[in-house]
């Protein structure tokens, strides 16, 4: 077994507000092997983006990492100084943000933005930069002539692809993606996912992919972590969780999207709304919305425990475990 690429242990992030601290990420642990594709799934406000930012060392006030550790390539990221961190970003890991519309500079051509990133991280000559820029753009399926294009001249899908191309300039070991496909149409979304998966296979980088739509990662990820209210609710291999989702929340997410095939079934979605993290519910955080809530759920907070091939945070399985 090779050493894990990324090892996150009990990472905890608080937002310091006037009304007190709000815990957005609560003791989340995550291991990413080299070349692995991890999907992180959850609703708005569940802490998934905060987790990504903390992993990428991009946390800025009012958010603070208050506990836990991030080991990347065997190094404790909290101890890496700002200069070295700047060197590691883009070269060793890169981040693709959610909205390419806001992430690209509208005043600069795509090529100029690639050049900026490369000049900040290498001593390469102008020709080498131009060549590499053309290479990565073609990798994501965009003709190199578009290096001269400005963001507004490209479609949403192409902008998102060029963001991914930019993240691959130095062929990093880890690419962190925050909902890169959610602003796209269905066809563009599927085509982009296929592209990401192909690149990941051929170039061998690992992907941590955040989304609110469980169906998006279903055919592409190796493992899935479902987050709820700042905590990991369930972690399992993709085929395991789609075959048999254990946590009632995972089941709710699975049942939330309509299908185009088979009989038409009524969908319920997940009633209610995600909890206010400044006052999380007592006991299990999902209990106010849970269809299988038991009296004990209001009292006791479940731990993340192994059940079968998965890890799940739910009292339904704690009792089953005691019994066996």
């Amino acid at each position, binding site marked *: 077994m090779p050493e894990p690429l990324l090892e996150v242990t009990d990472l905890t992030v608080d937002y310091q507000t006037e009304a007190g601290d709000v815990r957005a990420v609560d003791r989340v642990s995550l291991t990413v092997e080299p070349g692995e594709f991890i999907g992180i799934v959850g609703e708005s406000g569940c802490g998934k983006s905060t987790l990504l930012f903390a992993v990428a060392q991009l946390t800025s006030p009012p958010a603070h990492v208050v506990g836990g550790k991030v080991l990347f390539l065997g190094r404790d990221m909290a101890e890496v100084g700002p200069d070295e961190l700047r060197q590691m970003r883009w070269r060793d890991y890169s981040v693709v943000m959610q909205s390419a519309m806001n992430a690209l500079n509208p005043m600069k051509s795509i090529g100029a933005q690639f050049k900026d990133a490369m000049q900040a991280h290498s001593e390469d000559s102008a020709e080498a930069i131009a060549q590499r820029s053309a290479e990565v753009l073609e990798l994501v399926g965009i003709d190199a002539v578009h290096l001269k294009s400005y963001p507004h001249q490209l479609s949403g899908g192409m902008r998102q692809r060029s963001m991914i191309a930019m993240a691959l300039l130095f062929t990093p070991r880890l690419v962190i993606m925050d909902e890169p496909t959610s602003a796209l149409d269905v*066809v563009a*979304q599927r*085509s982009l996912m296929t592209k990401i998966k192909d690149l990941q296979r051929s170039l061998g980088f690992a992907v941590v992919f955040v989304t609110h739509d469980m*169906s998006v990662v279903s055919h592409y990820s190796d493992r899935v972590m479902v987050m709820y209210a700042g905590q990991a609710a369930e972690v399992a291999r993709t085929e395991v969780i789609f075959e048999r989702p254990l946590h009632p929340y995972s089941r709710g*997410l699975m049942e939330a999207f309509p299908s185009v095939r088979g009989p038409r079934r*009524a*969908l319920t979605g997940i009633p209610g*709304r995600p909890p206010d993290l400044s006052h999380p519910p007592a006991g299990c955080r999902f209990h106010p919305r849970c269809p299988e809530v038991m009296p004990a759920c209001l009292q006791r907070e479940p731990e993340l425990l192994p059940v079968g091939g998965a890890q799940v945070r739910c009292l339904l399985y704690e009792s089953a475990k005691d019994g066996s």
Partner: protein
Amino acid sequence: MSEPPALDSSSADVGEPLLQAVDLTRHFRIGRMSSRRMLHAVDDFDLTIGQREIVALVGESGSGKTTVARLFAKLYQPTRGEIFYRGRSVESLRSRKDLLWYRGETPMVFQDPFSSLNPVFRVSHGVMRCLILHRPELSRAERRQEAERVFGVVGLSPEMLQKFPYEMSGGERQRLGFAQALAVRPKLILADEPVSMLDVSIRAGILNMMASLRDEEDVSVLYITHDIASARYVSDRIIVMYAGHLVESGPAETVLSRPKHPYTQLLLSAVADPRERAPFISADTGEPPKVIDPTEGCRFRWRCPVAIDECSRITPRLRPIGTAHEVACHVAVPEEPGSAEATG
């Protein structure tokens, strides 16, 4: 589990049409004022929406679906063609009274529930304003009562009226959008991508609510979306648009189970479904065409796997291909008699 929402209402009997678009066309000039280049957002679009039915208008960004909604809402003037609402030409509605009437009958719900609400007013403000403007006969107490009633219909508690938009979640804001539309006693709600900005987990609730508006409030909905799976879930009829042209139209189940246009087939194959193990196999990158000064021919031909010579010479017209099922494609062939059962 209850019955799926769309099944109990058949699209067979919809009575007198509510809204009818005939040869609807909208072009936009692009570039400078002197420029003669025209972007063809919508070309020769025909559509009929009956009473008490949900019609889904499906297409990708740039297909012209929002332009259609804006034409219906009288936010744009058509370049050519006409819209009739309950037999009256919408073009001819010019007086304040007529416009107020038309807008009250056909309110719009917008895509982004975060930027379409005024953040400095309480939620009640928007609903009350709609009521004062469109139903001046109501007293203050009656307005209050009506606001509480429409909140109930869309699944919000009456206490929510006192909240500010920032206190509401995305799903609640979108319900509020429907409550405001409902307050004016509409016949047809124009809903432009009402769920695409929401989390998947709460979309189903909004879709179910749209179905109950149809079933209980007798409202028709034009549901604009790029997600054909949700269109199937909630609509009676599906209209597929591509690059400004209507390419396929028919009852939701027919279009889904026997899609005839290659574009509809592509849309369907792109829907991610973990219950399905087949991976997506298409080299298509989802790039929409630019429809600037188009020449004759099918606009899908560059992406079409089955295009023939004719497709680049003659623009396909919409033609019947099954029961209430129409397609604009030179290649599509009608279902063989008898095989409908097998594939359906």
